[in-house]
């Protein structure tokens, strides 16, 4: 475990506006978010020596360097597994700067995912191998009509929902909470637009009998960027650094990212459970010890399943944990105060990292009181940031 001045810290966060039609190229959105994150940190493009995005991102490293005047880099990396990999970018960045290989890494995600292409639609023109992208859904799901993330998620959540008697109302309470938080976050697409449980129940089926429209995250245009360096450099910068106390990733044999049907007890998320163990080993802090929990919320079912797998409550108890208010803004573990991907925007998980940092700084619109630790997760990866 790296401590003190050699520990990695998030020192800058930046973003564009979140919309459904940005009207700009993804390359421009990327550059805007990176410049905003550098300005937030008090750094310049010439300070960057490592850059990293998702394998699925359409913007380009060389173009980013050209656009904003990055002079020389010695590290570049792309993270696989889509949004599930969002938090794993922090694992790479942490080790790259703590080893001394890099001094300053920028992570970004830029997407016109509403105006140019939509993850929620079937896409049989996919330019990918049947074996690609950590899932086998192209060959083994598409011909049977399982063609969207909502369908794969609903199918994999079935045994969990069935075993614990999770109702559509139970899922609706997650969505109501996310939209309540988004309603008072001016950056959220659903700012000023809370929903009731009745509205959730009246929303149309996307995948019966599990996921309604209001169980699904948004499709958004926008970009987010994050700057990571070491504490020895962070002390001279503009913001209070968010120390990366631990960032862990785990992937297990015979599992997949979203069409994860083929191994083990489907009522559990064993990869998330493994990450939880590693986080505690790495820093002595458990996710449930954190005042804020940024949990990847592509679908409401994923939120309940991760709440249990990351140890906030026991198996089958997440629906009650939510209903009893333990994850409200003033609860034991406040859930995504920005409104998450359901309420704020779907920037593939990256906007949950920026909110975690704002909460630790005490600078969020929906600020939780006395935040010492923030937990962030995306299924196969988790991280804990501290003051």
């Amino acid at each position, binding site marked *: 475990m790296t401590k003190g001045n050699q520990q990695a810290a998030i020192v800058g966060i930046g973003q564009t506006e979140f919309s459904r039609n940005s009207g700009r190229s993804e390359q421009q959105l990327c550059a805007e978010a990176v410049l905003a994150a550098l300005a937030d940190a008090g750094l310049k493009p010439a300070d960057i020596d490592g850059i990293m995005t998702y394998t699925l991102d359409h913007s380009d490293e060389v173009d980013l360097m050209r656009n904003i005047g990055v002079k020389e880099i010695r590290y570049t990396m792309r993270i696989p597994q889509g949004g599930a990999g969002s938090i794993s970018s922090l694992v790479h960045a942490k080790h790259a700067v703590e080893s001394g290989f890099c001094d300053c890494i920028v992570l970004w995600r830029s997407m016109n995912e509403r105006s140019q292409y939509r993850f929620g639609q079937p896409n049989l023109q996919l330019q990918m191998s*049947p074996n690609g992208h950590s899932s086998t859904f192209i*060959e*083994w799901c598409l011909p049977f*009509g399982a063609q969207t993330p909502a369908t794969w998620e609903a199918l994999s959540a079935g045994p969990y929902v*069935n075993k614990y008697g999770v109702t559509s109302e139970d899922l609706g309470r997650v969505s109501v909470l996310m939209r309540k938080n988004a309603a008072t976050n001016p950056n959220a697409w659903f700012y000023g637009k809370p929903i009731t449980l009745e509205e959730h129940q009246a929303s*149309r*089926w996307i995948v019966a009998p599990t996921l309604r429209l209001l169980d699904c995250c948004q499709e958004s245009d926008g970009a987010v960027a994050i700057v990571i360096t070491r504490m020895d450099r962070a002390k001279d910068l503009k913001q209070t650094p968010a120390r990366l106390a631990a960032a862990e990733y785990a992937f297990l044999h015979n599992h997949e990212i979203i069409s994860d049907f083929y191994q083990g007890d*489907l009522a559990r998320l064993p990869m998330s459970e493994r990450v939880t163990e590693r986080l505690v080993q790495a820093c002595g802090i458990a996710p449930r010890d954190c005042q804020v929990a940024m949990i990847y919320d592509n679908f409401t079912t994923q939120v309940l399943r991760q709440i249990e797998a990351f140890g906030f409550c026991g198996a089958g108890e997440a629906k009650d944990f939510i209903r009893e208010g333990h994850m409200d803004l003033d609860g034991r573990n406040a859930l995504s105060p920005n409104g998450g991907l359901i309420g704020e925007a779907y920037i593939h998980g990256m906007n949950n990292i920026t909110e975690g940092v704002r909460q630790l700084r005490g600078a969020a619109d929906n600020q939780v009181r006395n935040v010492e630790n923030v937990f962030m997760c995306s299924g196969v990866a988790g991280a804990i940031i501290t003051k």
Partner: protein
Amino acid sequence: MTDSNLNPNRPDPIMSVEGAFFWKAADEGRFVVQKCGGCGMLHHPPRAICPECLSFKREEAELSGRGTVVSWVMPVQPPAFGFDVPPIVALIELEEGIRMVSNVEGADPKTMKVGLPVKVGFAKTRGGHALPVFHLA
């Protein structure tokens, strides 16, 4: 075993090198799974090498076609590409101990539930291929 086909525009399979045997067998009306030629273990989805014994020898084994529903859903919106009627998509646990995504055809969604026994049949795709699908047993 093919009923009146409610979804004649069903997409054709997209075959990987390792998975092609499954689809070709289905075209011949056979329901099979990958069997390791070294240790006999069954694998699905198919793979190049057996993770148990690291044998490259791939064989196929006939399946009984009997299984139970582990999970089921009906994608409604957006409509599934190639499906004129929303399909019941199900995760089936076969009695040989492997799981597979397929459809349950001819069932009423109101009476669908986890644990129902099912039996394999075949449905035609738009390009004239046959896919293994299931019916309530």
